[in-house]
């Protein structure tokens, strides 16, 4: 459920008030207008996760990188534990 995909926020197209905000998000060149109301913190250039026309999260680049180190992290943790 909850098909959501990451895209880059490339423009803010309207800001009705402090909460209602709309912007354009590019998914590898596919551009869609999405509601930004749920991601008040998102700025142009940020990657957001979009679900049914609303950005529901900004993507944390550092955490994203960490994903690839998972084995190492867990491995190290194990080694540490093993070493105890």
């Amino acid at each position, binding site marked *: *459920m*909850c*098909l*959501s*995909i*990451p895209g*880059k926020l490339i423009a803010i197209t309207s800001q*009705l008030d402090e*909460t*209602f905000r709309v912007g354009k998000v590019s*998914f*590898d060149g596919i551009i*869609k207008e*999405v*509601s930004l*109301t*749920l*991601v*008040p913190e998102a700025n142009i250039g940020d*990657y957001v*996760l979009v*679900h*049914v*026309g*609303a950005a*529901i*999260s900004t*993507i*944390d*680049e550092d*955490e*994203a990188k*960490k*994903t*690839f180190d*998972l*084995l190492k992290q*867990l491995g190290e943790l194990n080694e540490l534990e093993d070493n105890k």
Partner: protein
Amino acid sequence: MKYLSEYRNLEETKKVLDEIHKITTREWNIMEICGGQTHSLVKNGILELLPEKVRMIHGPGCPVCVTPLNLIDKAIELLEQGVIVCSFGDMIRVPGSKKSLLETKALGGDLRILYSPIEAISIAKKNPDKEVVFFAVGFETTAPANALSVLHAEKEGITNYSILASHVLVPPAMEAILDDKFCTINAFLGAGHVCAIMGTKEYYPLVSKYKIPIVVTGFEPLDLVQGIYIAVKQLEEGKYELANQYSRIVKEEGNIAAIDVINKIFEIGNREWRGIGEIPNSGYVIKEAYRKYDAEEKFNISTIKVPENPNCIAGEILRGIKKPNQCDQFGKTCKPSNPLGAPMVSSEGACAAYYHFSTNLID
């Protein structure tokens, strides 16, 4: 696509898979709650790359599958009465007790397939002399967008718009599954996008009450094998912890703005799950103050409750008690072209995912 393609990497995935094989010594039943994860597991052929001892159990996390028959009949009734009914694409082929929304459209109903509930507002504006209803199904992930559509309608003073809402919640369902006496589940993959909204904190009570690992997991192959790896590792080590594989998206506290929007429109109430039955406090209902946007209130549609097809074991499928290919009807009388139950309709339904993608069928 950035943040997508790199998680479909053959080598990275293989490394994790190898590690799973290495550490697995016993049989483990792991349930992925989310239909999107089921879809991804089957479509990418991950199930057969796992050790035989690691068995994935497919959970009820397909909103299309668990939307009650009765509510589909209501949407159909509205469509037949001349209301413009807007819906996500996957909902429209699900059979009601007599027919689907798609079939009702073929008979003349004005049904619109939308990418977003917010677009229903434009349709309401363009058709001021018609009533427009959005068929708002979904889990916690979708609730904020559906709520936003109501807030937009309120803000713009639109009176011909309402939603036919069926929002279900993940934690009560997990609890119901764990409470089942046939439950054999050893660990859960938590639904990453639900947690993007709700955070991870809801799961601490479950982890400690049932002493079961819960790994909040994403949807791409690398995400999934990592989630499985973390779960197996905890199981093999005799641990039960809440872990977050999907930290690039999911924060412990969730999305505060989104939770606010949900709480403006909805409050927690009892909900019926198709194939499972009523689960207390397992869904959102529209708050008193927003009742005028509640299509059930506005139109007072009363449809008769009709029993499900008795040969369909969707309830057992959705609770992870049986696999689709253990259903006698599967692939024989029940196919996507003639589904007997909801899990065969939605492409996220476990039965449909098996039918479309699973190489098990070859044997």
